[in-house]
């Protein structure tokens, strides 16, 4: 496999491919599971005469795909600790606090959603509130975690340097740049959800509700992106350098901008399907911009993909398992989406 592809003058190794696969899983989690989070945000912010219909639509849209969307995160984690164990160990150690909070959010959200569906009418609103609040906090902290990684604050250091608790376990993520990435993730998920929901809605008024929400969050996303970029100037030098000076930077920015403008334009002129494709492209391109900017590092500034990689035997086997898994999973996933996310019944 080596030597087939080059990025930035480097040969792409098997470890690079697997890091890419992990990022694909994260990408899928962001555009699929992320939209479920976004749905929770719109549930919290539901208002107007169709408030209850909005909430019902969100629940209907999330229901069948909920569990499957969640598994992308588990897949990413499992592949990370199998293929890049030192990176997993360092993340678990230095980001113990935000990751624990993410977990609490995931637990509350997942169970609240189920309890909300199956609970009695009189208690459903409480679960709706738990679900919505957890939907707000979890993406914020997930984004913050990503921001902490990108900022390069998760260096070797740690306990070995004799730093205090705050310096080691809190400072890397409780910082303007990671927090701005958290805000960005939250708005991006809400934006995706609003765009998807325009397609899910059957009634025109409901569709208009989510169109307006999509447009508003699309503009909000732009503001958050600019803010994160400005903060990266001092907060995440590697991302900054990557996003501004690398050879691929300009084309990537142009593509992302094109996708963003297309998404907003399509929402404006009510081309729902175009809007969905463009919104997914926009969020995915931003994620890949981050990935490319820190390549070849898995945890900047010092842990590279190559140095964190598991032995070749493991990587080869995991690749085989991935191929095998894809043969089972992709048709199944296609079937799930075809049954529930197309207007035509399969019967």
């Amino acid at each position, binding site marked *: 496999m080596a030597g087939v592809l080059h990025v930035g003058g480097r040969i792409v190794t098997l470890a690079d491919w697997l890091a890419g696969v992990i990022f694909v899983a994260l990408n899928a989690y962001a555009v699929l599971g992320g939209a479920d989070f976004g749905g929770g945000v719109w549930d919290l912010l539901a208002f107007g005469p169709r408030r209850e219909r909005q909430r019902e639509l969100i629940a209907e849209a999330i*229901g*069948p795909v*909920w*569990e*499957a969307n*969640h*598994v992308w*995160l*588990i*897949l990413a*984690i*499992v*592949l990370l*600790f*199998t*293929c890049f*164990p030192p990176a*997993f*160990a*360092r993340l*678990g*150690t230095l980001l*113990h606090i935000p*990751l*624990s909070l*993410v*977990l*609490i959010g*995931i*637990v*509350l*959200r*997942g*169970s609240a*959603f*189920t*309890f909300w569906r*199956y*609970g009695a009418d009189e208690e459903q609103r409480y679960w709706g509130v738990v679900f919505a609040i957890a939907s707000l906090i979890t993406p914020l902290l997930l984004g913050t975690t990503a921001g902490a990684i990108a900022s390069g604050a998760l260096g070797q250091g*740690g306990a070995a340097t004799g730093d205090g*608790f705050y310096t080691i*376990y809190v400072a890397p993520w409780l910082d303007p740049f990671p927090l701005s990435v958290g805000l960005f993730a939250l708005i991006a998920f809400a934006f995706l959800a609003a765009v998807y929901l325009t397609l899910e809605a059957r009634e025109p008024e409901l569709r208009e509700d989510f169109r307006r929400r999509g447009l508003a969050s699309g503009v909000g996303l732009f503001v958050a992106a600019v803010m994160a970029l400005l903060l990266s100037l001092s907060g995440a030098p590697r991302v900054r350098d990557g996003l501004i000076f690398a050879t691929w930077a300009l084309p990537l920015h142009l593509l992302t901008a094109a996708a963003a403008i297309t998404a907003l334009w399509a929402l404006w002129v009510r081309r729902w399907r175009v809007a969905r494709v463009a919104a997914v492209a926009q969020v995915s391109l931003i994620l890949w911009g981050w990935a490319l900017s820190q390549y070849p590092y898995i945890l900047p500034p010092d842990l590279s993909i190559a140095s964190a990689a*598991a*032995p070749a*035997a*493991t990587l080869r*086997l*995991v690749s085989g*398992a*991935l191929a*095998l*898994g894809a043969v*089972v*999973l992709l048709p*199944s996933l296609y079937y*799930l989406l075809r*049954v*529930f996310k197309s207007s035509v019944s*399969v*019967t």
Partner: protein
Amino acid sequence: MPDLLAARSQMAVSLAFHIVFAVIGIAMPLMMVLAERRWQVTGHAIYLDLAKRWAKGTAILFAVGAVSGTVLSFELGLLWPRFMEFAGPIIGMPFSLEGFAFFTEAIFLGVYLYGWDRISPRAHLWAGVAVAVSGVASGIFVVIANAWMNAPTGFELVNGQAVNVDPIAAMANAAAVSQTLHMTLAAYAATGFAVAGIHAFLLLKDPANAFHRRALEIALIVGAPAAVLQPISGDISARHIAAQQPVKLAAAEAVFRTQAGAPLTLGGWPDVAARENRFAVEIPSALSLLAFHDPHAVVQGLDRVPESEWPNVPAVHLSFQVMVALGTYLALVALWAAWLSWRRADLAHNRWLMRAIVLAAPMGFIAVEAGWMVTELGRQPWVIYGVLKTRDAVTPMPGLVVPFVTFTLLYCFLGVIVVWLLYRHIIRSPAVPEWRGFYMSGGGS
């Protein structure tokens, strides 16, 4: 609270909580598929109602199991980063496969739950089968990873580093077959008897209720054969442990002294200081016979290793006794029910059998928890047997008592709500009065 103890406690609480949902996630889909199949064959709406209720139960429990499983996959890094750094490349493979199995399960559960009116009955049943099969597969993969911690293989240790890593050999470790067999049977037995117990309780009040009679029947079809086979699988496990993990067996049986013709001890309380098991009933040579199929075989005692490498002997011994006692009870009740069925007796009207099954309801789960206590506590102080000590695997992060308390409270809260929801959706009798006489009029078979 010391950080190591807090980390171990948090892991224990997370596992103890998750295992309940994992076990139900393995067995409940099978019951749901059996009920749906009977509905398709007989056309009786009562089976459809059962299938839908069990599907709801599966949905609720799967959702909670999915999040508690997510917590565990993160906790491996949050609490035991040094363990994962070492073990990840060797044993990540079954976790990856489990990820795929879990994914398949999630996809087809979505299809099953929401697809009643969208796909053909045949496709719907197969979606259920896919859930049941992938549920078993994910359980097996996770237990294989745990088995490797008990029987580590597939690598060479050079200066504390693992070299020549062979993940396939690691998966084919010596404990894999006995542990996965024991756990899969346990899942069917525990879930089958828990469901059977609930319906037996309601049948005691209302023996003619066709709904509960059908539910009991399917629950016993799933639970009883597994409960009967479990002691055989237990024997395979015990013989494996006797050969590969003698310290664990010595702790489970409270054998302090290496001896030939070792007796089997029933009950008792190990006095570690005095090196004896007080108040125990001993069956001469029976342990040697069971562990090595030879009454004169030498059973290694705790004296073979320094006391610093002993597990908590009273805890392991007690857990082991509880597991064996409860498992035996389940097997006997299963045989009794099978005997009555063979004689074509009406199980639901046999009040003593119904009472025995009610008593059995929590036992399978208690036995599962106790069994995991044996295997996990019995391996201490090692996290990877003979390779890495638990205290060397824990995160350097201080203040671990905070997450421990937080997650414990969270799990207590969730547990209460899940029980309440299950009561509402699955256990309560259907409010359809005509089904009461359904069985008596000979409507079903």
